[in-house]
Each structure stands twice: as structure tokens, then as C-alpha cells.
């Protein structure tokens, strides 16, 4: 089959980008979307043009590195990553628009590659349980009710791909933040730091320039791991309880560090 690609090309963060059109004439329906791009890139290289830069790594839907807005949908389809999207989902002759994730906290590095280190900084604010190596008691000394363990796992399945931000009309990273707060908040080990964690992570979330949640649900709809919107409700609850307890953020944001 043949398709036409409209691809966002941008040399680096400082240079303006533009859409360019490329034909993809040797497409097999069995190819993954990224393999289709590989083939196009091989042709570009041999023609003496620069190949299209895009992020990818494991190509089995778990590392969270691949990140394309395909025809206006993050990862191109509900509940998959781009690497798991196959060309059989398209029709012969289609024109496919490919864009990078767009949000202020994700500067474009090149073409379709964006910088998502803001996610790491949200985790740094408190997305962990402070348990230094060696300090742990026996694993079975901390029983966790199965339903809680299952719900924690549902939220922990987040791969940090940032499709939620890309899909969100508000450019909010609330689903990502909430998934971690929910994962750790469902476990007894996570209780000690629970409310401090939530206020710290939100403080950094806001400082990084992410938008706020208006409960639209695009994030959850495109999430490859189908993280529930319910996690955001839990995050909100933790924030409200933290406020009632008088817990304030005690984390230094990147902006504060810089100034």
C-alpha cells in the first residue's frame, strides 16, 4: 500500500519548523508505524536528505519512548503506543499527519523528538517512597490487601510516555502525576509521605508549566495503559486533605533553583 506523510520537521528548539510531505510507497500492512518511518528514512538517506528524527526504543509498548501525534490523536489510536500501531489500521492512499507532542514543558529537540525531562522532575518532587537500600523489613511483614495491590498496580502501569499531556486540551500532566500518587497512595508503605508527596508533586507540576485539569478525560482515553481518570480524583483528595492538615510544599522547583 501507499500513503502520504505530512511530517513536522524542525531543526532544533530555536528554529521554526514546518510540515513537509513525503510519499511512503513501500508500505506493508504488517509493518508497525515506526517500521514504516524506518523505511521512509532509509529512502531519504539514500536520496541525500536528512532522515526524520523520532523517539523510539523498546518497540513493544512498555518503555514509553515513542511519542507521535498521528492524525491529531496521541499514538494514533486508543490504548496503544505508536510502536504497537500497525499500518493495517490505515487505508491505501491515506494522508497521515505526524506531529511531535506539543506542550510548553516539552520543548522540541528536533523534528518529532521532544524533551520530557519535566516528568522526571515531577517524580523527583516526591514520586517515591523513601526507603534506602538495606532498611527494608521482610517483604511479608507489610501485608497489602489484594484489591489495594491491584489498584496500585493499575496506576503503576503508567509508562510515562506523556500522551496524556499531548492529548489534553489544557496541556496538563495531571494524569501522569496522579498515577504515581495513586500507585504509592494505595500501599501501606506509601502512607507516611502520602500528603507531602501529593502537594510537592503538584507544586512542581505547576512550576514546570503544565496546565490544569478540567476533567475532560482525553488523557485517559488515549492512555496506552488505560490509566483511569479516577486517579486524578485521588490526587485531588490527597491535596485537599493535605490542605486541611496544613501541609505545604517543601520542595524546591527548578525555576526556584535557577533564580
Amino acid at each position, binding site marked *: 500500500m501507499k500513503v502520504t506523510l505530512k511530517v*513536522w520537521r*524542525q531543526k532544533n*528548539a*530555536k528554529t*521554526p*519548523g*514546518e*510540515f513537509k510531505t513525503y510519499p511512503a510507497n513501500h508500505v506493508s500492512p504488517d509493518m508497525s508505524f515506526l517500521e514504516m518511518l524506518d523505511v521512509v528514512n532509509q529512502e531519504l538517506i539514500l536520496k541525500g536528505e536528512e532522515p526524520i528524527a523520532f523517539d523510539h526504543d523498546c518497540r513493544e509498548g512498555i518503555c514509553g519512548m515513542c511519542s507521535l*501525534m498521528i*492524525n*491529531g*490523536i496521541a499514538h494514533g489510536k*486508543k490504548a496503544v503506543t505508536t510502536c504497537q500501531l500497525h499500518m493495517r489500521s490505515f487505508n491505501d492512499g491515506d494522508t497521515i*499527519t505526524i*506531529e511531535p507532542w*506539543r*506542550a*510548553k*514543558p*516539552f520543548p*522540541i529537540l528536533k523534528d518529532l523528538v521532544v524533551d520530557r525531562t519535566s516528568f522526571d522532575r515531577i517524580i523527583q518532587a516526591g514520586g517515591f517512597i523513601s526507603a534506602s537500600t538495606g532498611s527494608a523489613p521482610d517483604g511479608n511483614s507489610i501485608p497489602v490487601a489484594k484489591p489495594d495491590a491491584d489498584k496500585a498496580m493499575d496506576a503503576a502501569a503508567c509508562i510515562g510516555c506523556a500522551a496524556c499531556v499531548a*492529548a489534553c*486540551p*489544557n*496541556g*496538563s500532566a*495531571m494524569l501522569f502525576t496522579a498515577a504515581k500518587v495513586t500507585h504509592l497512595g494505595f500501599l501501606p508503605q506509601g502512607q507516611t509521605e502520602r500528603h507531602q508527596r501529593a*502537594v510537592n508533586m*503538584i*507544586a512542581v*507540576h*505547576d512550576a514546570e*508549566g*503544565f*496546565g*490544569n*485539569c*478540567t*476533567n*475532560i*478525560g*482525553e488523557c485517559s*482515553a*488515549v492512555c496506552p495503559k488505560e490509566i*483511569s*481518570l*479516577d486517579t486524578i*480524583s*485521588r*490526587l*485531588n*483528595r490527597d*491535596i*485537599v*486533605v493535605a*490542605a*486541611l*492538615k*496544613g501541609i*505545604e510544599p517543601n520542595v524546591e522547583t527548578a525555576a526556584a533553583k535557577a533564580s
Partner: protein
Amino acid sequence: MTGVLTLYRTSVGKKVIMALTGFILVGFVVFHMYGNTKMYQGPEAFNAYAVGLRELGYPVFGYEHLLWVARLVLIGAVILHIWSATALTMQSHKSTGANAVSGTRRYGEQKRQTSYAAYTMRFGGIVLLLFIVYHILHLTFGMVGYGPNEFQHPNYLGGHPEYFVYNNVVVGFQKPLISGFYMLAMVFLGMHLYHGVWSMFQTLGLNSVKYTGVLRGLAILVAAAVVIGNLSFPIAVMAGIVGPAV
């Protein structure tokens, strides 16, 4: 400042303000709709309701005092609701304003994956604000929408307050254009309530997988009750079910 008072600083805190003020406003629209059904009982009952509102708590409280408290709370709620909405919208625009570099719109073909109502909150909110302003100028003050001498202002001629809200509603809604505008506004109100009521629980952290169905149902119920009730008034007037006082 500590505790609850610092909430406003974070995005979630602003949303909590949004939810709490929204709760007050939802309570108001439900009560408003319910109160207005008195017009079906005729001019006396309806006009007496208007007076009764002012006499709430009387004689323990002064005349109109409780009403003013309610009005102040409502005005405060509206202001905070709008303030947090504006602040949050600005925050979101900052995040989505990545077009600073590309100069193009964010998504060529943004594909909606969820309910339409969720997208109408900002635009619909502005429409509702304009509607409320019009509504007050119209039915409360009679400054717009009436011909000369059509609107009857309250008076104290008999030594006690006398209200003519029944007449004003009937005369006001007999004009199809105005009724049409009211009905259109109710569609926006319906969507605002449908998303807002559920959203309120979500924001306050009271939603969960187990209850989300129930809460969505509640949102539909509230939105439907308010919209159907409110739509019935202009329709009843235009259909002649509620006619001029004889």
C-alpha cells in the same frame, strides 16, 4: 498563611475553589428553578413567593437581610468561580501555547475522544455570564426586553411590599425572541451542569471507579431537572398555559 488558605496557590487548589463555588451555584439554580414553578399556582402564589424571599427569617432578621446574605454569597461565588476559571485557563494556555516556536495551531486535527460537554465549559461559562447579566437587567430591573410600561416595578403603596413578578414573567416571555434566547442559554446551562456536577465530585476527590457511574447519573439528573424545569416556563407562557393575570 497555612492550611486551607494556601490551597488557592496550586492548580488543584484553584479547582477546589471552582468546585466549592460551583456547588453553591448548582444549589442556587436548583432552588431557583424549584421556586419558579410557583408560577403554575397563579399570580398570587408567585408574587407572594417573591415577597416571601425578602421576608426570610423575619422578624428575627431584618427585612431582606437574609436575602442579602444569600446574594453576597452568590456574588462571591460567581466572582471566585470566574477568577479561578480565568487563572486556570491562563495556566493551561501557557502550557498549550507551544506554538510560540512553530507558529501553527497546536493540533491540525485534534480528535475528540470524550464528551462534548467537557469542551464547552469556558465558552459556555462566558455565555452563561452574559445571560445572567441580561437576566437580571431583564426580569429583576426591567431595564431591557420590555416595551414602555410593560414592566411593573414593586411598590410599597399599601404599606407593605407588593411584587408583580408573575405579570413580568408572562409579559417578558410572550416575546418569542427573548424566550428563544432564554431557552438557548438553558442548553448551555445544561451542558455546564452535566460536566460541572460530576466534575465537582472528581475535583473534591470524591469520585472513584465504583461511584463514577452514580455520579454521572446524578449530574444528568440535576442538569435535566434544571433544564427541563426552566425550559417549561417560557414554553408554558408562549403556549398560553400560563396566561396574564386576570
